[in-house]
Each structure stands twice: as C-alpha cells, then as structure tokens.
C-alpha cells in the first residue's frame, strides 16, 4: 500500500485529505508543520507528500527546500496553496514541488495528481 504524508496545520484540511486518500486505498500519516514533517520523513519513508504553503515554524517552501537540499527524500510532493498566481507556482516548483493545487481542492483533482505522481493509471 502506498503511503502519503499530509503536511498541514489545519485539522479539517488534514481530515478532508485523509478521507479522500484512504477511500482510494492509500495509507496516510499527518504532520502539523514543516519541522514535524521533516522529523517524520527522517524516520519513515513515504511515497508522496502533500504540503500546505502557510504553516507555523517551517512553511511549505522551507520544508521542501530542506527535504530536497538535505537529500532526506526525493519522492514526489504536491504543494497546496490558496494562491493561484503563476509566480507562486513557479516558486513552489523551484523549492522542489512536483505538483501544485489551488485550494479549495476537489477530490478528483487531488486523486488525479496523486496517481500521476505515484506512477499509477489515472
């Protein structure tokens, strides 16, 4: 079973993503900010990360830069943001994201991105 880490400080968002992903057969773990996500990524391996931009302590950009820069994990990551502008997306990809979704996220949108990035049939 593929394992996904949801990194978001909002409990409802984590629960929403968890429901969608678990219904589609993925196993899910959660972290409340970037540092906690780094701790988890150091201790176990995931197949994909779903990362909110705005979080306390270490935000989505900071998390991705450290994850990639320190070579903790190179598996795909989807950035989730309230910003739809192109320069925000570019910044996310530069930080190490492989996908970008604008909030509020629709279930089929999320699953399509996840399947594509994990290398499954959409």
């Amino acid at each position, binding site marked *: 079973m593929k394992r996904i880490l949801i990194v978001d400080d*909002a*409990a*409802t*968002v984590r*629960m*929403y993503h968890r*429901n969608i992903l678990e219904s589609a057969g993925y196993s899910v773990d959660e972290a409340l900010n970037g540092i906690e996500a780094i701790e988890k990524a150091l201790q176990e391996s995931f197949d994909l990360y779903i990362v909110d*931009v*705005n*979080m*306390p*302590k270490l*935000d989505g*950009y*900071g998390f991705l830069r450290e994850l990639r820069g320190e070579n903790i994990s190179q598996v795909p990551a989807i950035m989730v943001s*309230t910003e739809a502008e192109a320069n925000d997306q570019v910044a996310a990809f530069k930080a190490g994201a492989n996908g970008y979704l604008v*909030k*509020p*996220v*629709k*279930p089929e949108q999320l699953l399509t991105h996840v399947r594509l990035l994990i290398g499954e049939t959409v």
Partner: protein
Amino acid sequence: MAFIKKTTSPTINDGQHTPEVRDCQTLLTQLSSTDASERRTAARELVGCPDCANGLMERLKIETEISVREVILTTLTRLGDPVSIAGMVECLRSEDAALRNEVVEAMKLLPQEVAPMMLGLLADEDPDVRIFTVNVLESLCHPDVEAWLIQVISNDDHVNVCATAVDLLGEVGSVDAIGPLEQLKARFVNEPYIQFAANLALSRINEN
C-alpha cells in the same frame, strides 16, 4: 579522567552577583551589528527597555537572518505594548510569506492585546490578511469569536477565507452557527471542501 570543573567562562555566576545592566541605547545600536549573534543578544535583552518597540520593528522589517527575526518577535511578544501590536499588524501585509507566518504565531500569543483589532482586520480588502486574521482568532478566548466567525461565513465572498473560518467554527461554534453553516453550504454548493468542513462543524455542534 579529564573532567574539568573550572569553567572557561569566568562570568558564569551563581545568581549571587548583581548582573551588569546594559543601557537601552547601546542595545538599540547593537541591533544593527554585523554579527547576528550580537543582534540576537541585543534583541533578547531589549525586553527590559519599555520604549524599544519602534527600534525592534524597524530592524524586523530589514532583518534577513531568520534567527534574529525570531528573537525580535519573541521580545515584541513579551512587550505586547500598542507599538508592538501595531507593528505586527503592519507585517501581516508583508510580501515575505515567512514573516507573515511568524507574525501570525506571535499574535496568537497575545489574545487580549490583539482582540480589539480583529473586527477591522476581518473586513480588510486583502483576502490574505483576512485569512491570517482568522488564523489568529484560533487562540482567542474572547466571547465574540463565534459572532465574528459567523459574520465571515455569512458575508465573505472569498471561498478560502470562509474555509478557514469554518475550520475554527467546528471548535467554538454553538447552535447559533447552525443556520449560517447551512447557508454557507448553499452558497458554495459546488465546493466539496466547504461541504465537508461545514458538515463536520455541524456534527460537532450537534454532538455538544
């Protein structure tokens, strides 16, 4: 064995000596030192200088070293005076996303002091500022929080401002929120996230 007991920093005291008092002007000057550790020390010790908030704010705006920013914000939070609060509010509009997140965290630690500004900020024209303001509300134990959130979900056109508010309403909402939550669902009928979050809030309210 190679333990040494004599400390290499002779200034470590046992709480017996009167600590040297540093004057506020020197500390404010030291805030512009080229050495980040000097700047952190100054920012930390300025907590003893009641009129230093302006100087700290000025530095915060140009400071690029995250560690120094963190200490400056801690001192501003510990001061919690009107100048510090006004400065934090100003930072909510910064282009620097990391700074905005840091400021939201600082404001969360000052519920009493920031409460009077909340209503104005919830009506701000910038949706990002409104989202950050709802985030600050999370830590506020203020009797009006629920009314403010209800106003947001009833009137705000921006789906992500409403989404942030619903999240919190699930925790603090009472029966007063039930009608507005139903209306919100009707207003954003094609947004599965709003449906999910509003239903969750409703079930939590009904449970209590």
